[in-house]
């Protein structure tokens, strides 16, 4: 037997990166002398920034209550977009040189524009009209043309030329990161998943904020260690987490470690989970087309997943595969308060879980509010699921 999972240094490293993300970025800047760009939304083609020697970091919230954004964003917009802007206004992103948004939901857009205008250290910003109709065949060629403009803007700002060589280098690092995280996820299919949802979330979110090269090294070591690591906890009910931006550690801790009925998230279908890294860039002589296809054909965010002739949601098709492959027994839908794209899918999503006989619980989350209020509901949900097991 190897080390206990909870003691693996790699998992501790992910957590430390997550907690000290601003320190990491400042240190990276000091060491590399490069620029750091904050990005809103995971549709940002990070590879292009990385190829120019820029460190892309995802702008995240801090889950603390705040009221400084209220003069700029109305409270009908999601707590995440408030929280991200609050970080900028409080100076926590004082090391950023630039900020960018690949067009996503309206909430992010609002927060992005206020961030650009009101955070004094931002020298460069770029708004990319990323297509929403990712289910239509013209989206990828169209995105390619937008990527070309983005690339030129980055080149001009950084004074670099991004050749195929640099793009290939960036794609290789990013693809490797995706492959390695998928390998970790693969292990979660087993009856006794070695890591929890909390570990997985810390792994994925840390990949969004550190240099992927550093992340890859730790991932490789983690995969080695996990081969014979000692899993101490009982897996219990196998859960899928459905949501938008779910980096709220206290919520995962509550479900997996804080309830009397054992449960483990085996998959996170959210943009701080699998949706971020699942799909790789496929080689193509035209590198920008390769990137365009990756971002258009990745598992879509609900903001971009709707009918263009056929009544299908690609995200749902993926969820159906995950239910089967990961032997999912229950689903927790964490609905970010006021998040329209996700809310718009919820009635149909519940029908989908019913169809597959997967019990589900929907919780409306405000990421800046304590999660303790959900204890009773989660407990009742897990208890009911546990009892079902007794009868079969």
């Amino acid at each position, binding site marked *: 037997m190897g080390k206990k999972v909870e003691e693996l240094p790699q998992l501790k490293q992910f957590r430390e990166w997550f907690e000290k993300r601003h320190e990491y970025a400042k240190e990276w800047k000091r060491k590399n002398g490069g620029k750091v760009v904050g990005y809103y939304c995971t549709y940002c083609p990070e590879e292009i920034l990385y190829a120019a020697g820029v460190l892309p970091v995802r702008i995240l919230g801090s889950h603390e209550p705040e009221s400084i954004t209220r*003069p*700029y*964003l*109305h409270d*009908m*917009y999601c707590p995440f977009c408030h929280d991200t802007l609050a970080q900028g206004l409080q100076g926590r992103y004082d090391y950023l040189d630039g900020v960018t948004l690949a*067009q996503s*939901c*309206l*909430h992010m*857009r*609002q927060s992005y*524009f*206020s961030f650009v*205008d009101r955070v004094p250290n931002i020298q460069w910003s770029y*708004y990319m*009209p*990323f*297509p*929403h*109709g990712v289910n*239509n*065949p*013209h*989206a990828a060629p*169209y995105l390619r*043309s937008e990527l070309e403009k983005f690339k030129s803007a980055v080149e001009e700002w950084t004074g670099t030329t991004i050749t195929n060589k640099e793009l290939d280098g960036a794609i290789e690092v990013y693809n490797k990161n995706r492959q390695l995280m998928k390998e970790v996820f693969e292990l979660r299919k087993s009856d006794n998943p070695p890591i929890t949802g909390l570990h997985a979330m810390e792994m994925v979110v840390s990949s969004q904020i550190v240099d992927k090269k550093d992340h890859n090294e730790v991932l490789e070591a983690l995969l080695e260690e996990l081969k014979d690591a000692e899993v101490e906890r009982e897996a219990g009910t196998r859960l899928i987490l459905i949501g938008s931006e779910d980096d709220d550690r206290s919520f995962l801790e509550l479900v997996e470690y804080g309830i009397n009925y054992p449960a483990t998230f085996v998959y996170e279908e959210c943009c701080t989970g699998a949706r971020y890294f699942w799909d790789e860039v496929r080689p193509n002589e035209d590198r920008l087309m390769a990137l365009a296809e990756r971002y258009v054909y990745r598992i879509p965010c*609900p*903001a971009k997943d*709707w*009918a*263009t*002739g056929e*009544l299908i*949601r690609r995200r749902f098709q993926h969820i159906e595969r995950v239910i089967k492959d990961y032997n999912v027994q229950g689903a927790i839908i964490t*609905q970010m*308060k*006021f998040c*329209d*794209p996700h*809310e*718009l*899918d*919820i*009635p*149909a999503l*519940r029908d989908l879980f019913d169809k597959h006989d997967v019990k589900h619980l*929907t919780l*409306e989350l405000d990421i800046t509010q304590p999660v303790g209020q959900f204890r009773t509901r989660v407990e009742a949900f897990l208890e009911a699921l546990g009892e079902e097991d007794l009868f079969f």
Partner: protein
Amino acid sequence: MEVKVRPLECWNDFKKYRERYYKNYLEAKDKGGIRWAGSAWAFDAIPHGLGEDVYPLTGEPYGATCAFFHDFSRQCLETIERRGVARDLCGYMRNYWGSIAQNKYLLPDGTTVEPFPKPDFNFTIHICCTHAKWYHYAAELEGGVPTYAVDISVGPGYLLDDKRINYVVKQLNDAISWMEKITGREYDDELLIKAVYAEADSMSTWARICKLNQAKPAPLEEKSMFSLYVLNLINRSDPEVAKLYHKLYDEVESRVKRGIGALTYEQFRFLTDNPPPWAFLKVYRYLEKEYGAVSLGAIYTFGLAGGWLGMDEKGEKWIWEPAPTPEEAGVEITNREEALRWTAEYNLRYRASWQHEYSHWIRKLETYQMIKDWNADAIIMHINRGCELWNLSTLEVRDYLVKNNIPVATYEGNMADPRDFDEARTFNVIDSFMQSMGIERISEK
């Protein structure tokens, strides 16, 4: 200022058109026609090519009509919420879904009929987070109606280039093949071309009508404009709609020449900026009656239904001038490709309400310039919980206007959820604002 007032002569023409429109949709199948449903922002010229018996139902005006009849709206909202639909989603959409879920169709006089008439297809656009997903789920509620949404998220008009326009044109081309397939009809390009001309005519003429409201006294007030602008939201590519707008233009122009206004007493001119709370249009009447305050319009009423030049090429100034029609631009549309390109470009470039999603800055300039051009004394902003798109940037705009010495009042509400509106509080906001502006009640004069 005491003002001469006259009722609008073409009022009934607009009213009748709207009644006929909802009835036509209802009865389309009896005549072997086609029904389609979609956003008021859909490229509505496209289905015209399927024949002259093709009848649309646009969702936002339908949702607004539901909201206006609050009891029906409450039933819709509660029915759909029981199915797990979140209460903070688009108010129009929840009324629309609720109407389907109840299987009841509302006519503009407030009567309801059953069943809800199912469309042959949904055809819409996607710009806010809601549009395409609205019709996707509506289609599921109706048992699988074929649905096609066109992605128009290509950035603001002044930054358009060929690739961005082509992206939309290609989707429109695909949509035509798709419509032919699902309806079994052959597409008629001549009908499309006629519709595309009519669309620009209707929208640019509405813009010219709005410009007439710069006059003092204002010949129109916004509450009445809601009944006029709506034809552009329900069927703007119908040549009959274009004709009605020409008739209205002539009448409003003559009112300006004769000094005929909308209010008998005009002492305060203001703008608004969002869809109004449809169940509480009395806010407008209160302002008129108590304060002689005329609502001149809004980036909503003008921008949703009108074609405008919008941002200048450098992105530094907003220009509230009507957009050119094909004739004015010296363009002759002779085939499908030209027609699709024209309608795509006209909408993407000149539809004011498709511009300000792309930055706070655009909306700030757009609003500021409207206040200047229409000689408004102030703006009263509806912080509208019912629409995330129209409420986008509102607080940043408020901040900008205040910094530029424009008086601003705000009240919270919901365009289409009557449960989400505090009437007494709104009137208090208005009274305090008027007091702060030194505007006396008419009765106290």
